[in-house]
């Protein structure tokens, strides 16, 4: 048993007052959760402290909030851990929590008396204390992706017969409990509130990846052509960190992008081609040939053909200021060395080694799906087990 201080951002809509901070001391075992702490404060000190919660076990998805600035489920965050995180965050030197056992050993970087900071989720309007309006934000976005199966024709007499791996594959998105932690953490949504967002796009993958759904193509076009759709994600990994169920929403978005690419849908950011240009260039030359990167990204294979598309010409032209700045600041080589065709080769047989790495990677294409693979770094489940999917780019 130890005493922890929770610093809660409160908002009482009927008081007419602005949000404020209030500290509550709670006495609980370090292994108990931040939600247990909030509920103790509510039970003992102030029943008006509002928080959605139900299962206490990271299943119902009610208690999404920010703990020490990170979006998470309060029931899944242990008080002891949160205390240490608060002090790492505050950087203060100070004693262990009051009343802690004598054997209490803080992590080297821990200590300190910074309270555990508890706030409502971000990117959603606050209704009261830790309760946010998910309906007008999160659920509106979920409904945006046509979140139900669209099979064609009459269902079969028995079950649909499908590849067993495909069901395990989409079970990762099915594991989503709609808690909103990813939405709360999403940096793209902070910049563009209309971004469909990580939760809804993960939900969309659940249908796109489902072989029983007959509208895959339509769904991909819809999500790709919406300016707030799959290409609005900036690949920042925040949602992967925030997700309490290992759904890895960003991975699902990248899978949608890859499937869109396979469908021949043009990526307005040109990201897919850009990645491919890199991959091919390194395979061929071992290092980045800056002279070719941009044109290969926008118009793969134009060298010698001189038939770039309109989009490619526009892309190349728009890239020019960036190229000039890169040369000026030394990020790209200066002009004479940028002439195509004079890129140096790797010494000796090094290029063969690069090719061998590619061949190995090709043989061990893996998807990080926790229902198949287990934890990262789990050696016994490591690279020897193959799956049919490739790792998202």
């Amino acid at each position, binding site marked *: 048993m130890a005493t922890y201080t929770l610093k809660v951002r409160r908002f009482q*809509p*009927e008081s007419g007052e602005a949000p404020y901070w209030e500290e509550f001391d709670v006495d609980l075992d370090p*292994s108990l959760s931040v939600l247990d702490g909030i509920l103790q404060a509510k*039970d*003992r000190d102030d*029943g*008006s402290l*509002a*928080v*959605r*919660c*139900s*299962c*206490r*076990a*990271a*299943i*119902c*998805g*009610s208690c999404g909030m920010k703990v020490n600035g990170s979006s998470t489920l309060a029931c*899944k965050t*242990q008080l002891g851990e949160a205390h240490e995180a608060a002090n790492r965050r505050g950087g203060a030197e100070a004693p262990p929590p009051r009343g802690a056992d004598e054997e209490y050993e803080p992590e080297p970087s821990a200590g300190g008396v910074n309270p555990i900071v508890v706030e409502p989720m971000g990117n959603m309007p606050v*209704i*009261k*204390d830790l309760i946010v309006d998910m*309906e007008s934000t999160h659920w509106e976005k979920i*409904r945006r992706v046509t*979140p*139900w*199966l669209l*099979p064609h024709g009459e*269902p*079969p007499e*028995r*079950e*649909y017969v*499908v*590849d*067993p791996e495909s*069901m*395990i594959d*989409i*079970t990762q998105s*099915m*594991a*989503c*409990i*709609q808690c909103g932690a990813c939405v709360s953490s999403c940096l793209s949504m902070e910049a563009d509130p209309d971004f469909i967002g990580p939760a809804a796009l993960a939900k969309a993958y659940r*249908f796109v990846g*489902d072989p029983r*759904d007959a509208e895959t193509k339509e769904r991909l076009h819809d999500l790709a052509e919406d300016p707030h759709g799959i290409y609005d994600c900036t690949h920042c990994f925040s949602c992967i960190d925030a997700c309490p*169920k*290992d759904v890895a929403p960003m991975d699902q978005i990248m899978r949608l992008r890859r499937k869109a690419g396979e469908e021949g849908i043009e990526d307005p950011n040109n990201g897919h081609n850009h990645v491919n240009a890199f991959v091919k260039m390194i395979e061929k030359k071992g290092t980045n040939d800056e002279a070719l990167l941009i044109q290969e990204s926008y118009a793969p294979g134009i060298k010698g053909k001189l038939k770039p598309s309109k989009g490619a010409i526009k892309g190349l032209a728009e890239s020019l200021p960036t190229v000039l700045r890169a040369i000026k600041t030394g990020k790209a080589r200066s002009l004479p060395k940028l002439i195509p065709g004079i890129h140096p080769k790797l010494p000796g047989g090094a290029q063969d080694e690069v090719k061998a790495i590619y061949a190995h990677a090709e043989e061990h294409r893996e998807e990080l799906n*926790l*229902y*198949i693979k*287990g*934890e990262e770094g789990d050696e*016994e*489940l490591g690279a020897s087990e193959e799956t049919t999917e490739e790792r998202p780019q």
Partner: protein
Amino acid sequence: MPTHDVLVIGAGLAGQRAALAAAEQGVSVGILSKVHPVRSHSNAAQGGINAALNPGDSWESHAFDTVKGSDYLGDQDAIEIMTREAPEEILHLEHLGVTFHRNEEGRLGTRAFGGASAARTYYVADITGQAIMHVLYEQLMKHSETVARYEEWFCTALAMDEQGECCGVVTRNIADGSMQLFTAKAVILASGGNGQVWQPTTNALICTGDGIAMAYRVGAKLMDMEMIQYHPTTLAGKGFLITEGARGEGAHLLNAKGERFMERYAPNKLELASRDVVSRAEQTEIDEGRGFPDGTVALDITVVPKKRVHEALREIVLVGRDFAGVDITREPIRIKPGNHYTMGGIKTDVEGRTDIPGLYAAGEVACVSVHGGNRLGANSLLDTLIFGRRSGADAAARAKRIEGSRPAPGVLEAEEASIDAIVAREKGSGRRVSEIKRELGETMDKHVAVFREEAGIQEALETVRRLKEEAKSAYVDDKGSVFNQDVLAAIELGYMLDNAECTCVAALERKESRGAQYRTDFPERNDAEWLKHIDLQRGDDGPELSYSEVTITQWEPEERKY
């Protein structure tokens, strides 16, 4: 005054299935829940759902296992219906998009479960309840034109007309505190069980027996309220659930000496005997000093291949890691029996009809009874879906048939006044709601648990009656309207106390041991006197007792061995 043909209270599996089934009949449907539907406790059903769908399996076999599991207290006509209709329901869910586990041929695959004579449990990893519920919610979103959703609305009372028929419900919109009287031609209660009456419990904080208490208060009969399931594998302290699927996948139960003790209690089925049997075995080991000092035994999942654990027991890996600090793939985890499921509930027929016209009940809130004295694992999801669907269809038929009536005057005003009175209680006028709730939970877990005897149950009943008095003056801090959870907790406390009183009265009455009711003072099953249901109805001085026959179709009671 919002009006629907059919109004469903509760939006877990039973409620959502009922709403969809009613809407299919072309009537107007409202579904109302005190939490957002996907927060409902059906989420927590991990292991799977039973159906005799495999070649070589039969509904008769499923039905017999269920009858035997119920310790012959289940009504066999209802069990026959449930097991016969199970395969079609599984296929329906599959067609709607549930991502059921597949075998190598890409067809539906099964796992083994307790008390079953065949592997007939269909599953989605160990998130089966969640996966099905989210798919049903997808369907509710799809059918938003025919099913109106009232998310985060709390029910305080059923509304009755002058003829004593149920015709609506009084509700509070949690978001703004406004009170509304909803009217309907049929009301379906699908609000779940009462696990929060016990502490600890595997149940979510929302499982406060609301529907059971509301029905009881308007005079509906309750049945088998003494039958409370203790699940064999819950975490000590917090009471979190470890799915029976773990044992289905081959995990062992070990005492502190490392003995696989189920060999002595159920030599054939071992860990996969029915839940009451396994829970009693564990409690006996613990009580006789062969458990660990913290009052637990061990569940050893390390014997299950690691790849299989990650694929099929993923949630349990997380529960072990996050809530017990144990890597279940490397070491055994400490568990004990814990409160889990309400077999009893509102007495219904096989169409979900209670003995009050217009009032239906389905799922854990109801007692059809398909579970009798002990529910088999993976039969609860099935119960919710089959009887949710049947209730929805029958309620829709009623709505088409009748004119509809108006609630007796004053019901809304009475509820408003009662809430105002709670809010008006002065600080310091009584105990805190949370204190009373804690005392209730600890009392019930001590005296009305795996092993029971007269003096203990009597003591629990007296405590409950004292707490009922204390609850009348329990005060709340929150005086506001927006998300006033404090006032809702006070109302829920009242619901829980009614549930507890009924359970104690029924547990005292049943002087035998059957299923989850094990009386150390009456350790034998006594078919001659007690092969019957105990019915309870509200009277002036608490619950009044009566009895009803158990329906037996083709399986005569016999000795139960696993």
